[in-house]
């Protein structure tokens, strides 16, 4: 019986902790990651997840020709570095932030409209401790507020 109570309490605490992390994730996306988008305008879409080392996420989005975009991928401090790659429809790598010291942002423009994949992975560490680092990763997209007509490439 004692064991049952212990397990029940432990699981309750774990779950409540997880809910709390989700709420923190929203604040992290808003208060930390949104700032990385400046001077681009956030597109208003909330994308964030609580991840641990080794976890992967993919984000699919259409990017339009003639527009300038910024991708901001932010990992919480407690997580190892976060790698992100931008892939085309055939999964060719167009950008890899690993080649740029795991930069949080990438600015680009499109010559033709395309649907791209942003592949995000939390790196693993050599740390052998039992505590697996867990934290929020926010992935936000901004576009440049330009209202003049499209430049011709």
């Amino acid at each position: 019986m004692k064991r049952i109570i212990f397990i029940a309490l432990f699981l309750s605490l774990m779950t409540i902790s997880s809910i709390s992390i989700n709420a923190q994730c929203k604040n992290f996306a808003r208060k930390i990651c949104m700032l990385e988008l400046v001077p681009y305008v956030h597109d208003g879409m909330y994308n964030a997840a609580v991840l641990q080392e080794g976890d992967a996420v993919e984000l699919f989005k259409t990017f339009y020709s003639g527009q300038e975009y910024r991708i901001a991928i932010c990992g919480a401090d407690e997580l190892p570095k976060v790698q992100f790659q931008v892939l085309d429809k055939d999964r060719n790598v167009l950008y890899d932030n690993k080649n740029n010291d795991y930069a949080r942002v990438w600015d680009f423009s499109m010559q033709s409209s395309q649907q791209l994949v942003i592949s995000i992975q939390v790196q693993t560490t050599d740390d052998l401790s039992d505590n697996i680092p867990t934290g929020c990763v926010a992935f936000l997209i901004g576009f440049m507020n330009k209202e003049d007509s499209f430049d011709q490439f």
Partner: protein
Amino acid sequence: MKINFKVLTVVASITMATFLFSCSSDKKDDGNKGANNEIDTTEQNDDLMNSMNQAKQVFYSLPSPIETAMLIKRAGAKYDESLLNPTTNAPNYMGNKSMALNLGIYSADLSFASLFDQTQTSIKYMSASKTLADNIGILNAISPEIMERLESNINQKDSIIDIISETFMNSNSFLKENDRAEIAAMILVGGWIEGLYIATQIAKMTDSAEELIDRIIDQRLSLGTLIGLLEQYSEDSKDIASVYEELLKLKEIFDKIEVTTSKIEPVTDPVTKVTTLKATEEKAPLDPVVFKALCKTVADYRNGIVK
């Protein structure tokens, strides 16, 4: 130790409740994974969807109304208020489906009015959006404080765009966190269909609208994403199933438009560090019959939502 049965019951209940809550919150990720195998879109999207199978978690970032409005404006569209859904219709919308779709429509109208410096109209549409958001139960997506900020920054377009973006983020995150992702999806469908409606109506009335028509054709890509998103809920929700059927009708028309793109080559400017993803695109001339069918299908669906 003597076990107090009541304490044990309470602890067990809390555990069960928190677990149930946790499981339902996670459902959206499972749903997304499930959608990976079910998406039926253009050839380009098929390739993408195959690649989804390898992912652990998949997110779709759909076009926001403000981005769509900006694309329409940059393509040379002129402002025409008669194309917007009158705010006086707001109290008529009952039920989650109608309210969610029309909230999306008002969001698009709000974005469109704001980008064309229609300040009083923007306030009217923000207020109508607030009414629907409140009725759907999206807490504080558009708070009184946001309304005040909008009114006090009414002549600063950049601030208004930021405020609109913030309200999207508020409603989007609230619905996702509260396991109401299907409502969020319907709001996005409403915003997307209104953007397409405005663009097609303006293109129809304009002699030289090549740029705008290009933007309309581009929407085939976002339509594929929307269909994929809705598929995961269509079996469980009649509301979503009916929206899904309407989008399939649009897909049939978009599939008649031939577009091919070359392989993308990233080229980075050494000074600005900005990368251009270069790729050429070939579009067959748009058949007027196809364009007419597209305009009609979009208008019929949109007018059915707002009536």
